[in-house]
């Protein structure tokens, strides 16, 4: 199918026009509105105590979420790839669940479970404040980022098979040696990619977090909540633009890392769409046996 030059250019124009109107112009507008009053004004508005503690809180949540997701994500991926147990498919489906759940529904569910009138409401009597506290925000973030590490590590584990690990075991390597020397190096790029996606989502999560936050500026406000509260509660439009621009820079850094890492991943996995965004049905390990044996 060979298009004539005019129609090729016409298609190109439509595509570029659409992207311009939808992506480019709005982003240029917000940048312009952020920096129009001058760089110093922008700098001042992201260096207010509330903004700094919002930044720190966002980083704190990331710093708690990432290690937890790495540990449990890798263990879950190992179980899903290596395990042959009844209900494996069901378990795999549960890992995908957070993608199908609206952030607001995540927040409501957590309130129903951890809130004072929820199933675990008794914790509040013991002085453990989950909802309207940091634990709630962390749990909400873990919920929405749970699939990333699992889904990025899984295909790599699948790819590498178990031969080398078995060889190492035969040669007398301890379990940690095997894991640290064989498994971890093999999955590192998938894992790193999963971590980058986790960080991006954790920094950017809004709906689930707003439902469980107490909303104290400087204490329980993340950067995304700061954008919203500056716009809504403070009537501070420029402040909201500035905080949004800061978040946008973080997002662009993430995007660059994603692009760099995408080239590092094994070719089979490096489809344009990350595995996490278009979840493929998990292949059965039984089907995999011939391949690793071959």
């Amino acid at each position, binding site marked *: *199918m*060979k298009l004539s030059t005019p*129609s*090729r250019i016409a298609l*190109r124009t*439509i*595509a*570029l026009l659409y992207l311009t109107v939808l*992506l480019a112009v*709005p*982003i240029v507008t*917000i940048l312009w509105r952020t920096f129009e009053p001058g760089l110093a004004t922008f700098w001042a508005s992201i260096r207010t105590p509330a903004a700094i503690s919002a930044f720190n809180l966002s980083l704190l949540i990331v710093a708690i979420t990432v290690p937890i997701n790495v540990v449990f994500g890798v*263990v*879950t991926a*190992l*179980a899903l790839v*290596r*395990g*042959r147990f009844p209900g494996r498919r069901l378990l795999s489906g*549960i*890992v995908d*669940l957070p993608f*199908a*759940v*609206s952030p*607001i*529904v*995540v927040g*409501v569910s*957590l*309130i*129903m*479970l951890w809130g004072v009138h929820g*199933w675990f409401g008794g914790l509040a009597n013991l002085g453990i404040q989950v909802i309207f506290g940091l634990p709630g925000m962390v749990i909400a973030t873990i919920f929405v980022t749970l699939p990333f590490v699992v889904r990025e590590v899984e295909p790599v584990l699948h790819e590498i098979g*178990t*031969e*080398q*690990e*078995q*060889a190492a*075991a*035969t040669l007398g390597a301890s*379990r940690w040696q*095997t*894991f640290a020397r064989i498994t971890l190096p093999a999955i590192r790029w998938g894992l790193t990619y999963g971590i980058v996606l986790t960080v991006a989502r954790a920094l*950017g999560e*809004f*709906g689930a977090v707003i439902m469980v936050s107490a909303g104290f500026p400087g204490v329980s406000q993340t950067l*995304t909540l700061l954008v*919203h509260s500056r*716009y809504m509660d403070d009537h501070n439009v420029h402040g*909201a633009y500035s905080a*949004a621009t800061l*978040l946008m820079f973080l*997002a*662009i850094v993430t*995007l660059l890392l994603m692009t760099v890492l995408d080239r590092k991943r094994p070719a089979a996995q490096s489809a*344009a769409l990350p595995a996490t*965004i*278009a979840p493929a049905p998990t292949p059965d390990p039984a089907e995999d046996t011939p391949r690793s044996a071959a």
Partner: protein
Amino acid sequence: MTLDTTTAKGAANRAAPVAASGDGAKRRPPPLLRSASAGRVSGLTLGVVVLWLSLIVLLPLAALTVTSFSDGWSGFWAAVTAPVALAALWTTILVSAVVAVLNVVVGTLIAWVLVRDEFWGKRFVDALIDLPFALPTIVASIVLLSLYGPNSPIGVELNATRWGLIVALAFVTLPFVVRSVQPVLIEVDRDVEQAAASLGASNWTIFRRVVLPTLAPAIISGGGLAFARAIGEYGSVVLIGGNIPRETQVASQYIQQQIEIDRPVNAAAVSVALLAISFATLLILRFFASRGQEREEKAT
């Protein structure tokens, strides 16, 4: 480095599986090693995984579902069919469907341009497509509001209209169709197209009869994912949507409102309805995907 050495070792130890299992019987390695080396997962590992997923994912959703039925089936039904709740669900589905269709058409077109066309700055445009995935939704909302909101510099004020919702959702769902069609389009065998062209088929016919059938599964899956994402979206519509009941209020906003006015049962019920809709969408997608796979397997 690691890859090279390990492949060499792997090649040298082809018989390893047998050896390992024989060995394992003798000195029972600790759980994680067995999970790593023997192709099995220990009960402990599995227990940890199940417990973890239950605590984070299943229990909250179970609590939600139980709460939604705390006034019985009739209470659930009344909450979901309250006129404003129904209107919010309907707005959500309608707008998401429009956005999915928009994505199917424009997304395919963009994928086509990015694969088959060459122009200056193409790599940059290609990278730009991922931006909506990386951008926090609230930033997307405020970005669009700065252009299409009050005091719009171009005089287009879409806030508090359904058009505003469509723009916001189109923004956040842009990558789905593009990114699922792109790789398929790269792989497409162009010989068939050339053969059809040499037989005198018009471009439109070639597209309809040759290209589209190949792309269809990717387009459907991309559109479906965009739809599923739009159904639950909150952050990107919160500032630009206007939250007008019966007009621009989407289901997630309605749910939040019900929490704020202290009607948790209503909130839970509509949440469950919303969950059901996204599950149904994803199930249908999976059905399509597996049917496509079967057909492919039959063909080969």
